[in-house]
């Protein structure tokens, strides 16, 4: 059993503080936080690495003296903006956890429609308060983004470890195809399925293609992603522009590209 008092307080002789970590959630499915509890094999080691002072989904009470805030979810209501600002004021490091927090996630799909229509479609004439779904960075400075819907636990653990020992955080610049091939998969296009692997940032270890399911771009664009060529590939293989847009816009990471496509092609 890990005993936090005996925890090494240094890494290679450099003093290491066990940071106080808090989890928060705005509009989301809370899945990214749960990924942390889904880490049965490494959960205890993780809990020894950081001190969790707030995790509403798993614990009562909790302190406000956190240094690292892991914020999940997108902003869809004014009270969330206020909460977010309070968190920002307290946290030394504000981390956007998951695609909702980084890009708006699936929630931003509602931004395709006028807000009034959206409210009426679900709540009829009943009064309901909502705003377009937005990423955290539209409201506060975000220090670090952890991509994915859901986040990959191995990656979260790696990033948190690096944070704790004071190492710079790095992400893959390359697209998912790289990891897909390293896993020995036959390309989904060969099997007649669309995939956004060629333009999506890797780091998930090609989670979906490993299951013979095409990527939907949940981690957003890779560095210098060649979207024009991606579109040419989809066209050439007979996938409609609608299919491509469905995927590109699913998680919000490609928002600007989708806006351009819609403007060009008149798609809703």
């Amino acid at each position, binding site marked *: 059993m890990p005993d936090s008092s005996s925890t090494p307080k240094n*890494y*290679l*002789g*450099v003093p290491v503080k066990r940071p106080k970590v808090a989890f928060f959630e705005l509009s989301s499915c809370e899945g990214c936080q749960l990924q942390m509890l889904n880490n049965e094999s490494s959960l205890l080691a993780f809990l020894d690495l950081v001190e969790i002072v707030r995790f509403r989904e798993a614990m009562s009470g909790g302190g406000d003296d956190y240094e690292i805030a892991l914020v999940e979810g997108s902003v869809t209501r004014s009270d969330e903006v206020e909460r977010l600002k309070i968190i920002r004021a307290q946290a030394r490091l504000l981390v956007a956890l998951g695609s909702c927090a980084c890009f708006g996630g699936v929630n931003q799909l509602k931004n395709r429609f006028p807000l009034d229509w959206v409210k009426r479609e679900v709540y009829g004439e009943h009064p309901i308060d909502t705003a377009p779904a937005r990423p955290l960075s539209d409201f506060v400075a975000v220090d670090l983004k952890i991509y994915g819907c859901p986040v990959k636990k191995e990656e979260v653990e790696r990033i948190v470890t690096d944070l704790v*020992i004071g*190492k710079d955080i790095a992400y893959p610049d390359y697209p998912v195809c790289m990891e897909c091939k390293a896993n020995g998969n036959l390309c989904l296009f060969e099997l007649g399925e669309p995939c956004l692997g060629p333009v999506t940032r890797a780091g998930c270890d090609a989670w979906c293609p490993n299951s013979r399911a095409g990527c939907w771009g949940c981690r957003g664009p890779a560095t210098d992603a060649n979207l024009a060529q991606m579109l040419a590939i989809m066209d050439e293989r007979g996938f409609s522009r609608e299919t491509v847009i469905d995927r590109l816009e699913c998680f919000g990471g490609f928002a600007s590209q989708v806006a351009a496509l819609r403007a060009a092609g008149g798609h809703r």
Partner: protein
Amino acid sequence: MEGRLVLSPSEAGGHRRRTDLAAFEHTCQAEITSIHRLTEQENLYRLQVVDPGERERFTFEPGQFLMLELPGIGEAPFSISSSPSRKGDVELCIRRAGSLTNFLSKVRRGLHVGLRGPFGTSFPMASMAGQNLLLIAGGLGLAPLRSVITYVQENRSHFEEVDILYGAKDPSQLLFTYQYEMWQADDIRLHLTVDSAAGDPSWDGRVGLVTGILAELFAARRGGDFASRTHAVVCGPPVMFKSVCALLTQEEVPMQKMFVSLERRMHCGMGKCCRCNVGSTYTCLSGPVFDYWTVMNLKEAI
């Protein structure tokens, strides 16, 4: 078959991966004996190879580099900045630039680091004997050059006129300021310049590019056989060595007598990872020290 498979025509023989990997991945441990702050960005690390036998066997030549590793943090190439005669007591001048180097700026003396190497080519000091030396550095380029300077100090009689031309961004960025007097005491002329002294009113030295000093230097000695009897060692960012070498060429210093040190990304130092390739030349094996003629012939070198 006697249970063992052997691919012909290679000879039979025990080849266990782990023992070999131990050799390939052999890291000699060195202790950081002192850390000396040079500027905001750079520290000088004095390292001592821990094992006395290894320390004695550790030899290198000016211009060669080491791969320095911190477990779990990273591994990266650094030029050795100290005198070759000190063997396994080496000094590295390291600038904070990324993951490993930032972490290194936080460590304390006493820490063990891993060293692999030395790797790469060196400045051919022996063949420069009897000649004039122009040692030209820009910014962090003084780090590899310092190894040459110490060599010259220790073998001063082997060389004719020796000039150091060194340029930095501003006075606060000048490296090894505490050694300038000693260099000059060894009859090495030192010419300093900075790009800008706006932030430091006390600076009464030159402002401008090193090429300016170089041009003056040649102008003063024009006429004799100075150029043909001169070797140049140029260390600095690509823009800098490009213009310096162009000027030297114009002054008719032979290209084979100009040496530059190229910097590329490196992950192995052993000619395997390909990260350092220039065109299709491995900087870690055929470099980092190249003569300028070779560099001119490397695609995408400059």
